[in-house]
């Protein structure tokens, strides 16, 4: 039972990070019908950028709330700018092109970001400082969890609820949903589609940046090619939840995190990735558009 509860906590932690990254995939897909393969590398980029921002600007030997919040805010802003640039340079010229051209462009953009990280920070693993968040450890009923885990769970839940409210309750959120359903009709209604797409990239990249920083703080070691691994897992989470579906991405992320943790806890971590995809394929066989995906009629 202890193993179960422990893996439950670990799984929810990593699952909520998958969910944050999955939101970036699912929102871009929902609006542009494009798999943004560069998103995972953007997450890796945020971990490196955040580390540099912290060590250059705020590392004065003491941990302060202001420093941590500033690091997160700075990183999110930087990555949001990169995300908007990505859309502007690599995706916008291809909006009317065949769908797969944009996929190749996304793969190319991922390659560019990954190698830019390697050229800037070097090919070796970088280590996050341990003093960014307090290293307090709690123990409740035999289950050990850290302050970092609490922060990850708390902060990502807040972000997800905020995003859900934003999409469903505000005017801008309505515009996003309208563009996701039909771009042309939304344009006729006076919605600035380009601005909505820009907003999608800002939100998605900022959420990815938060996830990237937390990944660095949680695992400590970061490498230039880590984006591929986490990105792919998050993408699978988005697919499991039904890509394009925002609550689906959150649920998919948590589900995948839990599943991964249970496989690692009870079976073997060597096979974790294979089981991730076995789960995905089994789900797709029974629900071809993901668990929360709607039945979409083929466009004629």
């Amino acid at each position, binding site marked *: 039972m202890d193993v179960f509860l422990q893996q439950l906590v670990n799984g929810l932690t990593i699952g909520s990070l998958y969910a944050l990254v999955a939101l970036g995939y699912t929102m871009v897909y929902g609006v542009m019908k494009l798999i943004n393969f560069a998103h995972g590398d953007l997450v890796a980029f945020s971990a490196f950028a955040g580390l540099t921002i912290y060590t250059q600007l705020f590392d004065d030997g003491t941990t302060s709330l202001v420093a941590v919040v500033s690091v997160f805010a700075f990183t999110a802003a930087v990555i949001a700018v990169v995300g908007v640039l990505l859309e502007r340079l690599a995706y916008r010229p291809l909006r009317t092109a065949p769908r797969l*051209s944009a996929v*190749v462009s996304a793969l*190319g953009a991922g390659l*560019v970001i990954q190698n830019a990280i390697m050229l800037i920070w070097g090919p070796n693993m970088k280590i996050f400082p341990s003093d960014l968040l307090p290293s307090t450890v709690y123990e409740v009923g035999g289950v050990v969890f850290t302050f970092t885990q609490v922060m990850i769970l708390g902060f990502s839940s807040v972000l997800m609820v905020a995003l859900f409210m934003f999409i469903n309750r505000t005017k801008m959120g309505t515009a996003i949903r309208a563009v996701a359903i039909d771009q042309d009709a939304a344009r006729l209604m006076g919605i600035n589609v380009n601005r909505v797409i820009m907003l999608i990239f800002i939100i998605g990249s900022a959420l990815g940046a938060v996830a990237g920083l937390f990944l660095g703080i949680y695992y400590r070691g970061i490498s230039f090619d880590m984006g591929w691994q986490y990105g792919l897992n998050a993408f699978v989470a988005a697919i499991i939840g039904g890509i394009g579906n925002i609550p689906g991405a959150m649920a998919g992320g948590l589900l995948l995190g839990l599943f991964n943790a249970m496989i690692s806890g009870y079976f073997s971590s*060597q096979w974790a*990735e294979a089981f991730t*995809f076995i789960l995905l394929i089994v789900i*797709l066989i029974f629900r071809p558009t993901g668990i929360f995906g709607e039945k979409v009629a083929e466009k*004629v």
Partner: protein
Amino acid sequence: MKNITLTTKIAIGFMLVMGLYPLFADSAWLAIGTTFLVYACVAFSQDIILGRAGAFNMGHALFFGLGAYATAILNVHFGWPILATWIPAVLLPVAVSVLFIGPIIHLRGDYLLVATIGLNIIFLQLLENDIFGLTGGPNGIFGIDVIEVFGVALFSQTYMYYLAFILLAITLFIMRSLDGSKFGRAMFYINKDEVAAQSMGISIRFHKLYAFALGAGIAGAAGSMFAVQYSAVSPEAFSVIQSIMFFTIVLVGGSASLPGVLIGTFVMFVLPEIFREFEEARYLVFGIAMILTMILRPRGIWPVKFGNIPEFLKKGVK
């Protein structure tokens, strides 16, 4: 041969150049040439699935790897002669494609894409975890024999080159015949408009799976050749990154276009060999080139002119 078209002329020219290439190349360039021929076969087999049938397959290295590992395991562990391993190296990928792609072939594009990535990753983990003690784990398998024909060992680079050349010639022949065949035409219609094709009585599922099986078989044969060329196999040659390369080759070159796929293979595999000295920034430039190519030529460098519509249908159509 009354009217020889431009493509036929280009094809004959290409085959002549490739056939005479070993006379001018030193051994390093001969090895690059051999690799080019093998990868071109794989790229063509991917083109059958992605370019012609329009099924988003991003796990093609799986079939390539199955062929390579079939040859390696049967030769090293069970002592089969190389020529005999060619049959399972083709049949195993075909069987795997039917068994594992069959249940998911109906998935919509992007879902199929991620499911095929998944199959590739599962395959890779089987290799890396040394399943049944056969695959040699992360190191792979070394010491694959050379091909023997009537007791003569074909070990020199030139022999390798010509074996790969024969393989490419066979592949090209299959690709050409495909255009004129009933199956090839059906695939063209499926790719153009699935719903319309279905209403004409074309079975989408059957044809897509057929494309997968055919593509997997050719990729397996190329994989076997790959294993013999390097006399070793290891998992990283069949990773998802390689699958993405094959996916990109077809789309950068021009899907369903024979010269396009050859150019794609050249750009993605031979150019990086030539620019090896700029090791560090090579892939950065590469990524930028991928984006620029797609922006400037969204249908690929050498797109197919008017699909593979049969001649008699072109009359009256602009």
